[in-house]
């Protein structure tokens, strides 16, 4: 297996991401998303019509998985990696908490912060600032698991 490449410059990668977002606006008349794909599957699994559903997001997330894999493959970064116990449980718990936050806010960093942010949506900016605030606030408490 080839040596893993270094990650791209964040500003360059960010510009690339911004162009993908722009392409989405122009070609699909809408921005990106992620949590919506999760709610779509969940709504079908337990029959909860109150959860937001979107066929488009389901297909998009499928693409995200493929794209992420492709990029890692090309850069030699595909590798099965399991973290220690506390990391894994916090990952699961964090995911569940994010699930609640995303349902309440009707979006996540992809759908609200990125998509809404670029369109100057009030909700998008409020969510983004609140999310950063919430993360910084809890950071000291979970510091140990990251060291």
């Amino acid at each position: 297996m080839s040596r893993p490449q270094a990650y791209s410059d964040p500003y360059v990668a960010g510009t690339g991401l911004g162009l993908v977002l722009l392409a989405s606006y122009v070609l699909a008349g809408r921005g990106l998303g992620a949590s919506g794909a999760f709610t779509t599957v969940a709504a079908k699994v337990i029959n909860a019509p109150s959860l937001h559903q979107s066929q488009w997001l389901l297909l998009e997330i499928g693409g995200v998985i493929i794209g992420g894999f492709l990029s890692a493959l090309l850069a030699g970064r595909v590798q099965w990696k399991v973290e220690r116990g506390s990391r894994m449980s916090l990952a699961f718990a964090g995911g569940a908490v994010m699930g609640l936050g995303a349902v309440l806010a009707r979006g996540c960093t992809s759908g609200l912060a990125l998509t809404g942010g670029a369109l100057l949506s009030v909700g998008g900016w409020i969510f983004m600032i609140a999310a950063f605030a919430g993360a910084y606030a809890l950071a000291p408490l979970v510091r140990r698991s990251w060291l």
Partner: protein
Amino acid sequence: MRRTLATIAATAGVLALFARDPGTASLDRLGKSIANEEDHVTQDELNQWIKQKKSLRLVDVRSKDEFAKSHAANAESIPMDQIASAAFKSDDTIVLLSEGGAHAAQAWVILQMRGFRSVYFLRNGIAGRRYEPGRDGC
């Protein structure tokens, strides 16, 4: 690379400060379309399209009651209050119908603002068709 990106962003940002509001660009385009009579079709043109079996969506924007009383063959009913959220494909060719053509013309503006380009309304509406000179002996 970073410097280039930053310069481009800064320039675009400063220029945005002095630019005319983007909302007006689409209004300009609409005004020109209307002036160039690209927004509507006559009954004859519509008949031609139907004869050519052109793939069309005939949309009747009158109320459900009016539609129920009588409507053109192959027309679908999407009342005015649902036009803003009705589902269309971006490559559909849509022809809007209303009684006198006014509502259809208004629906045309709404659909154009929603981003649909291949939209037309029937000039003089359905009524114009009904009372065409020579046809009904008037």
